[in-house]
């Protein structure tokens, strides 16, 4: 999957969780939880959705790496 494809998948999953988010204005280095006002449950649902879509088993210790768009793209590209 290219970075562009990964990005659009992430945006798709996040927009199901935070439908009112302004994804066009999303900056890659911003903390998604701050920008999209995600609470613990929202963020957990995001990780579950990523896991279900990609099949990647994401250990809890890696969750902080998924907090930014750039971080999540890099993590999923490994």
């Amino acid at each position, binding site marked *: 999957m290219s970075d562009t494809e990964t990005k659009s998948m992430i945006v798709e999953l996040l927009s199901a969780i*935070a*439908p*009112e988010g302004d994804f066009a204005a999303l900056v890659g280095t911003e903390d998604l*939880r*701050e920008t999209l*006002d995600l*609470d*613990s*449950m929202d963020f*957990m*649902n995001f*990780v*579950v959705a990523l*896991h*279900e879509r990609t099949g990647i*088993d*994401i*250990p*809890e*210790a890696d969750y902080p790496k998924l907090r930014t768009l750039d971080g999540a793209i890099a993590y999923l590209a490994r």
Partner: protein
Amino acid sequence: MPALGADMEAGTLVEWLIKPGDWVKRGDVVAVVETQKGAIEIEIFSEGVVSELVVPVGAKVPVGSLIARIGVPGEAPTPPVTAFPAAPPTPAPPPTTTPVATALPALRGGKITPAARRRAAELGIDPAGLLGTGVEGAVSVADVEAAAAHSAPVSLVALPPRRAGFDSAEMRKAIAAAMGRSKREIPHYYLSHTVDLGAALAWLAAFNDSQPVPNRLLPAVLLLKASALALREVPQLNGAYGDGGFKPGPGIHVGWAISLRGGGLIAPAIRDADTRSLPELMSVMRDLVQRARAGGLRSSELASSTVTVTSLGDRGAETVMGIIYPPQVALIGYGSIGSRPWVVGKRVKPRPLVTVSLAADHRVSDGHIGALLLIAIERLLQEPEKL
């Protein structure tokens, strides 16, 4: 029309899921009512045959109004009432004296998900005619869309335009009414206590390590369970205050405060929270959050809480001092969990700490009782494997 919380005065009937002649039993969802808290599914608490739907779809009626008649099994259905003022003649089938469900198989139980109901209204589809393929035969969004794609609309639904989820201005009014009443009537006292979550979070990390992603738990589940177990030890804080004074709760039904996107707050009940396992509580919590945001909560979930627990989550403030939700007598609040200095033995160490607070009704308990609860919560959280 049931009262879905202390602050509700009236509700608008937006959909009947039963019709005269249907057999209903305790717990069945019989109608959908639009309230300030969004669309709520109304459950029934008796058993029998529906003899009449008194309130027509679209009518707004005060709490306490008769909305339908249910015949007791074995008796003839009660005669229709003509005294209800605003009701236009209902195009009901002739009353039947036998408890035979005349519904099509697709209609049995009349279940439809809230999202599917909205989609059906948008598409002008009558969901009553659809075959449900969802959970327990419920009509799902996919069923509605399939019907829209493959056939002309069966009939236009005569509903007012449905709001997605809830109206935040209406919800603000509901919160204002309930919290205004609480501050006027309830002499609150407040206590707070700092709790070391080191043991609890270490246990949680190890548990989550052993679990696939979807089965992992949030710290909030531990806080919820510890609160419920502590209330077992201090029952004076679990129940309702009314004309006859304090009445202990019939169980520990925790209203879990959920903040809604776009503003607003709702606290549906997690029934018997003290008896449920952590994974069970986690899945109940996830389900409630989802339904609270999509507008699919049930009447029993809004009227049965015996206490409220709120947790600000990992990006919240350090401390919350709650306002009791009447007629309850206590609210337990957790601030955000953060690494802060703490004395362990004779050293100051960074530890994950949480401030737990209690707002309680002084007509029912004193600070001594309140402190017992906070100390019990602290003790329970030191032994997370027993939660």
